């Protein structure tokens, strides 16, 4: 009896099970082969862009000779790191980054409060102005400040001497202060962009409740507002600290001339400034800085785990705006002053510098247009310009497509192996540009001779894609995770194929994020210096490298001209970004 009952049960189950099986099988047959091929290709590309340079760092740090030469394996590179000088380099790196993070955070909080929570006039316009410095390539402001704060002929010192009549030069940008100062111009708007939404989105009743409990404004800000912001502030500060350690331009321009070395400039110097280049040492240092960054990221995870507060309520008043009375003109002036110092001064210096015969000698009879003629007549400039544009367009597009694919797979599918793909795409995030440059230097040299990437523009393209992938994945992931699954499924139910669904629904809804990410990547490529300077060769220079070469040759006047061109491009792109994709600006 029991047997037959079981049989009947199985019989009853069989058709359903069979139907399900055959359905799955059909689906597998239809999609499996192409999907496996596609996934394999994607994994291979990501591996080449992230795992390969990383493993090449390990290989190179143990290899006794420069890339491409026969040698032995030893630990000399790591042994050379353990010197007193390098301890100072490490302390410099950490100290400078700390020294710029703390005041930048204070300034960013102040600016965020002014622009999000007070009735300061023209807040919308001020916000655009205050965040503009973040989008200017650091190499431009570095050169401009090199001219402004030059202890001998700097404009600021000349002004000071002209006003006071003294002959001392109080400002010397080639110092610890100069390095920190230049980094701060980027850290403040960066932090501002990270925290301003937290200020803006906070449920105002959290603060009003404190007022009703009898707390003064100041006490409310201290015990409620700031405390609620703490997770956002901590994560912003750690990110800013990491960027400080990765920073290359500031210590290169203002530290190296004064004998102040940090890890990134140490890597650069040991390859570019020493003869013979010490590849093994540089690679070993690169590996160490990555380990350092990895530790910081671990620390960040531990610190912030479970410590984010949902302070946003569905409904409510716009965030409580503090009426400042007459003081609102003070806050207005403060924001304008920040903009003047971080943008107007350096751009003004470039403008002045481009029209005078010699930098530092500003007399009427020295006015000239010859620098413009020289730049526009120089084939090197046009080649750099063309390369930058080409790399920017192709690089940003390719990176966004790659990032979009990775994000789609990791957010919207349940495919096996998707977390591996996500992790590989994230890996370059821990590599400063210069470290990635070193990794690719080894990687390209060790490729078979049939694949001659090294020395071509492709080398730069691959490095840019690798550097940009984590950002593009992040932008597209947040876009995809905001789309509900229902939308996609609804389209399928209504008869659209997977491809049609992708095209009409997923891409149609996420293109604004795509555009925002694209512009950010384009900016990133335009400003990139540290990887480019290791990977370029004659013929594949980009604008930032052209600028650096001119600067090193002492041609500050032509630098000013090219710098102005780049500034115009930055402002143009920023304007396009703001006016056409305005409502998505917050996804930065």
């Amino acid at each position, binding site marked *: 009896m029991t047997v037959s009952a079981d049989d009947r049960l199985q019989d009853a189950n069989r058709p359903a099970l069979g139907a399900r099986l055959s359905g799955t099988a059909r689906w597998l047959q239809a999609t499996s082969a192409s999907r496996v091929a596609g996934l394999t290709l994607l994994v291979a590309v990501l591996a080449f862009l992230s795992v390969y340079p990383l493993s090449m760092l390990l290989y190179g740090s143990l290899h006794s000779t420069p890339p491409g030469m026969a040698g032995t394996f030893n630990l000399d590179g790591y042994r050379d790191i353990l010197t007193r000088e390098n301890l100072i380099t490490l302390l410099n790196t950490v100290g400078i980054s700390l020294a710029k993070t703390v005041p930048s955070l204070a300034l960013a909080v102040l600016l965020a409060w002014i622009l999000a929570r007070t009735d300061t006039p023209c807040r919308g316009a001020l916000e655009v102005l205050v965040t503009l410095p973040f989008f200017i390539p650091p190499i431009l402001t570095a050169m401009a400040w090199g001219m402004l704060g030059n202890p001998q002929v700097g404009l600021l010192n000349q002004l000071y001497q002209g006003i006071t009549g003294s002959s001392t030069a109080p400002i010397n940008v080639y110092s610890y202060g100069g390095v920190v100062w230049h980094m701060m111009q980027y850290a403040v708007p960066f932090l501002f962009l990270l925290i301003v939404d937290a200020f803006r989105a906070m449920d105002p009743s959290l603060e009003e*409740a404190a*007022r*009703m*409990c*009898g707390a003064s404004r100041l006490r409310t800000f201290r015990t409620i507002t700031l405390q609620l912001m703490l997770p956002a502030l901590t994560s912003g500060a750690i990110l800013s600290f990491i960027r400080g350690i990765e920073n290359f331009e500031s210590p290169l321009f203002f530290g190296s001339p004064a004998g102040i070395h940090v890890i990134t400039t140490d890597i650069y110097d040991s390859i570019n400034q020493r003869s013979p280049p010490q590849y093994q040492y540089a690679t070993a240092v690169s590996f160490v800085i990555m380990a350092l960054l990895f530790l910081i990221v671990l620390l960040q995870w531990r610190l912030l785990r479970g410590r984010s507060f949902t302070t946003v309520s569905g409904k409510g008043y716009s965030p409580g705006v503090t009426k400042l009375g007459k003081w609102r003109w003070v806050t207005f002036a403060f924001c304008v002053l920040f903009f003047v110092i971080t943008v107007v001064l350096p751009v003004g210096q470039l403008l002045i510098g481009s029209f005078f015969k010699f930098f530092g000698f500003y007399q009427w009879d020295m006015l000239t247009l010859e620098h413009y003629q020289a730049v526009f007549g120089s084939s090197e400039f046009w080649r750099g310009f063309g390369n930058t544009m080409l790399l920017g367009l192709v690089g940003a597009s390719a990176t966004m497509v790659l990032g979009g694919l990775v994000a789609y797979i990791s957010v919207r599918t349940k495919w096996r192996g998707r977390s591996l793909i996500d992790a590989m795409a994230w890996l370059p995030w821990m590599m400063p540009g210069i470290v990635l440059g070193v990794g690719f230097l080894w990687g390209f040299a060790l490729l078979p001779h049939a694949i001659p990437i090294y020395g071509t523009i492709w080398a730069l393209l691959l490095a840019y894609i690798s550097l940009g992938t984590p950002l593009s994945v992040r932008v597209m992931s947040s876009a995809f995770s905001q789309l509900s699954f229902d939308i996609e499924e609804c389209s399928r139910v209504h008869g659209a194929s997977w491809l049609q669904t992708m095209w009409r629904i997923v891409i149609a809804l996420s293109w604004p994020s795509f555009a925002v990410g694209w512009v950010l990547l384009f900016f990133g490529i335009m400003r990139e210096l540290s990887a480019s300077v290791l990977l370029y060769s004659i013929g594949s220079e980009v604008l930032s490298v052209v600028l650096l070469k001119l600067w090193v040759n002492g041609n500050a006047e032509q630098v000013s001209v090219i710098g102005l061109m780049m500034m115009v491009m930055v402002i143009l792109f920023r304007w396009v970004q703001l006016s056409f994709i305005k409502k998505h600006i917050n996804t930065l």
Partner: protein
Amino acid sequence: MSNIVLEKVSRKFGDFAAVSGVDLRVGEGEFVTLLGPSGCGKTTTLRMVAGLEQNTGGRISIGGRVVSDAERGLFVPAEHRALGMVFQSYAIWPHMTVFDNVAYPLRVRRVGRVDIRQRVLEALKLVEMADYADRPAPALSGGQQQRVAIARALVFEPALLLLDEPLSNLDARLRAQMGSEFRALQKRLGITSLYVTHDQEEAMALSDRVVVMQAGRVLQIGAPEEIYQRPASRDVASFFGSPNLLPATVVNCARLDDADFALSVRGSGWEGTCRAGEARAEGAKVLVMVRPESVRLADGANQASSVLSGRVVQSSFHGARRALTVEVNGNLMRAEVPATTPLGEQVTLTIDERAAWALSA
């Protein structure tokens, strides 16, 4: 000591008058509710009493002290008014424990540590949350956050409690429970309360008096029964439920002993009597308000003052009651009758005189 007086209070945002000319007196220990649709100015009024919003016209006094006077430019900020307030989102600070949340007003007032502990636990006991004192605030459910918010508002023994839609984020069952619990607590403590809601049932169930607001103005102030049964205008009537408004002409008007008036009216296809709060001239047009639940099916036994016949066009079963839509001479009329009543297609409806209230047409 803890009464509230609003005199001609207004608030303008640019050209838009969110609140205009509100007069209101809340007596000591009274529970008064500001009721109205969203955007009617009720929350703005409450926030002006709280001191979170400054009135652009008029005067507000609390406990005999003027706290805000637009003409004299006087304004006492929120932190110096010493009022308790419960917010719609509860505004429980997520970075503190339950204890710290409730202790905050006392710490601001520099109360001693031992005293704080005792008073916080007392306040938490009052709302039955004493066991949760050491919980982090984000670990609370909506109803628990609500209780903590009330404890925090009461812990420093304010003379006055302000509540801004405190129940609107709770589910229906919890809402009814929290509402009656809070009303019991309010009565026990005798604390003067000003309460804002858009839910008319909540307002009627909780309040001593209800202030009906619309477009920044007060439409009517009165006890819940009065506002429900004797609304001052069509707007107030429509705000509570969905009453039938039958157009009619006054045939006769007679003064009654209780200062009301009895009207004989004629509508299209029916005649009857109703009550009015003021004398109406013969031939005047009125709207006779009849609540659906006051409409009865004629059974021949009861003495009705108005009788209407019509055809049932819609009937839906709601458990205890049945909701009917009846077409009477081309007008649709809603009625709620006991679900057990047998029904034909043609029905005769009756309305008692005391259940029919005349409004200006």
